[in-house]
């Protein structure tokens, strides 16, 4: 930690932090599902290490004072915490807009009504497939499909706005049109179609999940057509397959610029995958005030601004558009968190990344490594 007041990036260049709009609150890593592309780290946090509800209440107040307007209450499965309604209440009392990000498993109709009274503003429900066989196989949870459909019905009955979240990959991408139809049938205002991001668990399952180039192209076409057809009825947000793109995604809208993530044990991260940058040290809300962490921590300041970039980013006119892409992907694929995101067509590693993606996409394995907590402990 620097003891002077000027925030600096990892090279010592002065940076100017903005204010965060949104906070992802991962209140638990416990989850009844075992999706093989889970965005949680491979090293999951156990229940005993989870922040108590009182601490979350304080974090929400600090977040609102810092400028956060919305909280995404997520996990794991947030419903795995019995005090979820209390946590939601405290977020609303802090003045935050509350999005509940859920698998729909383990939240009964009564509990959903309790969450309505607690002030949940919006529900985002994940779908792993459009039929029982695929949904249950991908989630590793027999019966998940039926439970999700029941849950979606209660969401509409109570009147919450509903977003469907569909992670797509080689095994379910061909059913994308059906997924969009299903979201519409369920009364969703919005569907988020997100191609698997190959961090953590998903990286362990590259060969089984990597979409083909043809699938990625078809998905874009399907999304574009559906957007026109559903104009004014349902919004489609789409995260394309970046291994098949020309430029990287503007991850987090820039490191430490608009969002932050608080992990179950109170660790504060610039993005949910940031712990894959193994040399980086992250602060905890148990030790420091959130605004101090946001403005002054080495982790949040590390990649702020553009001065830390090297070539080809440094002289690239897109450096303030995509901010060099994803730091975690640079870490995973280049072994260097400072590198240009290797999916960028200007990266010297691009050809190798594409070759590896094509090799994975051509694999005939469908076997999945499921996300599970290690036994014991």
């Amino acid at each position, binding site marked *: 930690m620097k003891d002077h007041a000027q925030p600096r990036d990892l090279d010592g260049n002065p940076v100017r932090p903005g204010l965060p709009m949104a906070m992802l609150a991962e209140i638990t890593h416990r989850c009844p599902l075992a999706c093989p592309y889970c965005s949680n780290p491979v090293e999951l946090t156990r229940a005993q290490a989870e922040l108590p509800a009182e601490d979350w209440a304080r974090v929400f107040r600090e977040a609102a004072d810092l400028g956060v307007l919305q909280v995404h209450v997520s996990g794991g499965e947030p419903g795995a915490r019995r005090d979820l309604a209390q946590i939601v209440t405290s977020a609303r009392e802090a003045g935050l807009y509350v999005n509940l990000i859920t698998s729909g498993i383990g939240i009964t109709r009564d509990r959903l009504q309790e969450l309505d009274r607690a002030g949940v503003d919006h529900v985002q429900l994940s779908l792993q497939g459009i039929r029982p066989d695929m949904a249950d196989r991908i989630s590793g949870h027999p019966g998940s499909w039926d439970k999700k459909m029941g849950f979606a019905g209660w969401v509409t009955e109570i009147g919450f*706005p509903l977003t469907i979240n569909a992670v797509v990959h080689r095994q379910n991408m061909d059913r994308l049109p059906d997924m969009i139809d299903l979201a519409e049938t369920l009364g969703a205002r919005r569907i988020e179609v997100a191609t698997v991001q190959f961090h953590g668990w998903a990286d362990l399952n590259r060969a089984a999940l990597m979409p083909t180039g043809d699938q990625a192209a078809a998905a874009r076409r399907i999304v574009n057509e559906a957007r026109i057809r559903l*104009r004014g009825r349902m*919004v489609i947000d789409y995260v394309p397959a970046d291994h098949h793109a020309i430029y990287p995604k503007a991850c987090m809208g820039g490191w430490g610029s608009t969002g932050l993530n608080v992990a179950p044990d109170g660790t504060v991260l610039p993005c949910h995958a940031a712990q894959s940058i193994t040399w980086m040290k992250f602060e905890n809300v148990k030790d420091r005030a959130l605004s101090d962490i946001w403005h002054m921590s080495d982790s949040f300041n590390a990649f702020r601004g553009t001065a830390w970039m090297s070539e080809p980013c440094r002289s690239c006119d897109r450096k303030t558009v995509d901010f060099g892409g994803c730091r975690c992907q640079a870490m995973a694929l280049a072994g260097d968190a400072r590198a240009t995101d290797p999916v960028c067509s200007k990266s010297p590693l691009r050809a190798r990344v594409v070759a590896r993606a094509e090799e994975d996409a051509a694999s005939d394995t469908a076997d999945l490594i499921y996300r599970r907590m290690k036994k014991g402990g």
Partner: protein
Amino acid sequence: MDPLIAPDQIPYLPRGVRLAHDRVRGIRVLQAPERAMQLDAVGDAILSELDGRRSMAAIATRLAQRYNAPARQIAADLSDFLTGLVERRMVFVKDAP
């Protein structure tokens, strides 16, 4: 661009969408599912007119009077602005009873 809202229809903020004051930045925002949109004075004025009873035509008339502006121009701006929000599902539309 097809306007999506007829003059006799009633635009309203559905559940999960609300006007709010951002006390840290000192701005008005529209809070919606996983979106917070900064509003300028015009956007705030328009959205503050949505009470679930007034039609597009009635809102245009009120705004034209309040800002002493041509009703036609106001109606066009109103329609453009709200159509954008209907497309994002932040504003819903219903028929007059």
